[in-house]
Every structure is written in C-alpha cells, then in structure tokens.
C-alpha cells in the first residue's frame, strides 16, 4: 500500500508551492489520491521553503504538515543538509537533487536512491529564463519522477498542460522535463556506499 510523503525544498520565488500542485495533478491523472501542502505563513524571496505533497493509493486523510518526508526533491543542493542535519532514511525513500554530481555532504544520508542532474543547465538550454533567473522547478519534476517512479511521466506532461495552458514556456518545459528525465543519474544505496568508501580511501 504505497503512501508517499514528499518534500520539495526550494527557495522562496522558485515556485516550490506551485510544483506541489503540479505533482498533485499528475498523481491524480495517474489514478492516485493526493494533496499539496505549502509552507504556511510568511513567504520571503530567497528564504528556504519546504512544501510537501502526499500521494496515496487511498484517500488522504492526514492534514498535519510533513516534517520528515521520505522522498525529497531539492531545487538547491545546499538545502537538504540545512533542513536535515541527520540521516533518517534508514534505507528507504529518495533524494532528487539539482546538481551535476552528488554533493559530498550527502554521504551521510541513507535513502534507497539518490537521483541527480544539472537541472539548471538543461532549463537554460531550453530557454527557460525569466528576468535573469532560470525556471528550474517544472523540469526538476522530470528528474524526481525518474528517481522515484512514483507516477508516470505522461501524467506529469498532462498536469503541466492543465496548469499552464497559456504559458509561453509550455513547450520548453515539456522538452526540459523529458531531458531531465532522460539525463538523471540514479544511484542505489549500495552504489552510494561504494562511492563513500572510495572517497574515504582517498
């Protein structure tokens, strides 16, 4: 009976709250039950934010905030250690991170999988730039789905069409999502342990 409690770590202004909604629509199109919880209260640009999403295969009856999500998407790789100083994964769940390689600070965590890809670069390549900042949120969801397999990538595309029908970035987002999905490297816990040993041997 899969029940996913997902955390999206971002900085105020990166659209973490909107991403929760997109993910909830995608889960819905996949026939699942979902809710998207923003961080309540004051929002400030640039401040670390966690929004969360529940995706269940039964109606979601939980309303409390998710403090320890087991599947994390981080738009900024520095945020995971900032939110979670200690490991709590115990071999379950996942981290998907916008980074060209797995940051060394992540060796302390023990999720079943870590997925990583340079979302920034892919988003930029597809022209997802607005007022000088790169729009990485939607493409990052492609990476998240690759890492977690929680929902189908087709459902994500459908959700993007639903949420942003008139956006001039619509096509670019679809393409960037697919490229992020294709380019995401996924490491299992065993592979991570090996990597960690290699690093400490050096």
């Amino acid at each position, binding site marked *: 009976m899969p029940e996913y409690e997902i955390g999206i770590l971002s900085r105020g202004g990166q659209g973490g709250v909107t991403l*929760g*909604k997109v993910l*909830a*629509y995608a889960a*819905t*199109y*996949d*026939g699942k*039950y*979902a*809710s*998207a*919880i*923003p961080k*309540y*209260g004051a929002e400030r640009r640039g401040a670390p934010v966690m929004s969360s999403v529940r995706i269940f295969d039964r109606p*979601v*009856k*939980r*309303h*409390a*905030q998710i403090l320890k999500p087991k599947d994390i998407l981080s738009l900024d790789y520095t945020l995971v250690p900032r939110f979670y100083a200690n490991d709590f994964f115990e071999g379950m769940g996942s981290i998907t991170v916008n980074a060209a390689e797995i940051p060394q600070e992540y060796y302390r965590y023990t999720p079943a999988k870590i997925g990583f890809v340079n979302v920034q670069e892919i988003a930029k390549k597809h022209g997802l730039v607005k007022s000088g900042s790169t729009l990485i949120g939607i493409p990052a969801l492609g990476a998240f789905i690759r890492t977690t397999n929680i929902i189908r990538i087709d459902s994500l595309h459908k959700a993007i069409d639903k949420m942003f029908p008139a956006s001039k970035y619509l096509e670019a987002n679809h393409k960037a999502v697919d490229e992020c999905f294709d380019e995401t490297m996924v490491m299992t816990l065993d592979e991570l342990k090996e990597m960690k040993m290699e690093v400490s041997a050096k």
Partner: protein
Amino acid sequence: MLDMGKVEIWTGNQAIAEAAIRSRPEVIAAYPITPSTPIIETLSKAVETGRLRAEFIAVESEHSAMAGVIGGATAGARVFTATSSQGLLYMMEMIYWAGYGRLPIVIGLVNRALAPGWSIWVDHQDAYSMRDAGWMQFFAKNNQEAYDLIIQAFKIAENHDVYMPAAVNIDGFVLSHVAGQVMPLDQKTVDDFLPPLNPLFKLDPKNPVSFGSLTLPDDYRLLRQDLLDSMERAKTVIENVSKEWAEITERDWGGLVEIYGSETADVGIVALGTIAEEAEEAVDLLKSQGLDASVIRIRSFRPFPTEKIAKLARNYGKLMVIDRGFSFGSSSPLAMEVRNALYKNQVKVPVYSRPMGYGGTDVTYQEIAEVAQEVFKEEEEW
C-alpha cells in the same frame, strides 16, 4: 473511485469560491482578511470577467461587508461573503442582525485564532464567538466537503422551515491553503439541486414594511421562540438535504454527525473539522494496536445534534472530546455541548475533554492516538 480526469486540485479557499460561484449569488460584499482573502479575490475576478453575474461591493470593513449582504438579503437576493478571525469579530454586530433578522445569508468562515498574540493560524475560537447569534454552523473536514457544504448551506438556509443564515467553517491554512482533490459539479446539477431563492419576506417598495423596529417584550419573546423552533426544524432539513446530496453526487458526508469506525466502541473521539478526519487515521492506528475506537464527527455545531449524540453515546464506553477553542472559566465549548446532551438524556458515559491544536498547533494522527491511549486507561477523573 473518482473520475480522475475531472478532478481539480483546489485549495479550500478555491473550493469555497467555486462552490459559491456555482450557487449563483446575486450580491457579494466583502473585505479581505488572511486566510480567507483568496475566496474574495476569486469571486471579485469572477464578477469582473462576467463569469458570475452578481453585484460585487468592495467595502471598507467587515462590518460593512455583513451590512452589505444584509441589505442584499433583505431585498430578496441570494448573498455570500467570507471572513476570518478579527474580521468576524469586527462584523459581529451585523452577524447578530443577520441571525436575529432571519436572513438566509451564507458565509465562508476560514477559522483562525484570535489576537493577541497575533496569529494567522487555525483554531475555532472565532467560530465559537458567533455561537449564539442565530446562525447555523457547519464544519468541513476536507476541501471536497467544503465545496459540497457551501451549496448545501444555501439550500438549508433558504428552506422556509429554517430561513436563517449559515456559516461554513474550514480550518485556516490546513484546508484554506492546502490543495486537495475536488470533484466539481456542473452548473445544471447545481441549478437542479438549488433553485433560485424564494424569499419568505423582502423589501418591496409596492408593499412597504419596516424591519428591525422597536419590539415590545411579548413580541420579542415570540421572535426568539420562533428562532429556537426553526433551529430544531433545521436538524431534519440538514439530514434530508445531506441525503439528497448523497443521492445526486454519491458523496455521503453524514447529516448532523458522521461516524467513522463502528457504532459501538470503547472510546468515541468527538471532534470538528480536519482534526476529526485526522482522527480517522488515529482510529486505524489504534485498531492495529488492538484498541477499539471510533470518530464521532460533529458536522453541525449549530444546531447541535443533542439527541443524536445522546443516542450514539450509549454505545461507547467513553467519549474523548478534542476541542480547538476555550470557554475561559468553564470547560471547552464542544465538551460542554456533549456533556449537556448526555445529561439531558440521562446517559452516563464519561466525557474526557482533551483540547488540542490552538493557534495553529499541528495535530497529527499519532498524537491523537497517544492521547486516546491515555483515555483508554483513565478510570476516574473526567
């Protein structure tokens, strides 16, 4: 199973605004306040774009917002507004005018704690402040029920056996800003369920009468007695409208009360709103530990289902009441109601008051289960 292609991911505020639009209000007078502001914004936009044909009056205060919809309702229009917390307190003089004036107004009340200390987060103290104003008070446990309740509230409020205002309560942020799955209804379905308002009385220049004039004690007593009687009749109307709704939508939320779990258990957990749905998870958790509990969710706080609670209570070993508010110098408002219901009907079941979740404190199902475990062990003091 939901038809997932038609489901929307809406916040509680969006659900309330969309349901209000479907209900075709003719007058909306409103003033924004966190966390209910997005309801007003959505309605204002709907009027501006022509999606909703209504008079939108952007007023300068909540007092005027309620005065505006009182004017509309007195003229025989279907009216709607929304507010929260301090906004409701500022509105209070007019809230009583609407209740005692018997106007079928519907308000979306997004529950928020009262200041000071300044808080924008949920508790139910604002709702309790209007307890005796002659309003019906309904509480939703999720966004779908919030949507459904708005449309039902108009139908109940406008019923000639009832004819009084109704507040639909949702927990601030916990529902108002959390996006959940909502299956909207098409306009025809809502129109068939909710015909246009047929005013019991209204301002009519051809047939002038005065409203709210000086009333001598004997007549005043009759007015209040009529309100008491109408509240009693509302109980039946609420049950019937809920049944009709369930037939149309296949969504049965219960009438005055919804039970989760068995109708006989060692502990019945009584609660309002989202805590009651969270408690359903607690009941499942307790069951896995071999403990037998159920949720008794009060959907209608006014009128309060006194007889129903007394009847149900006989089947439970103990009742545990979770309240998100206070009555200083006495016990918590919901526990008082439950005890009153039991005493009135000579039901001797212990009631344990276990308030949680003030000023936005998160209440998890694990915490509810922990508190319930203690109640299972309680022997005397209650």
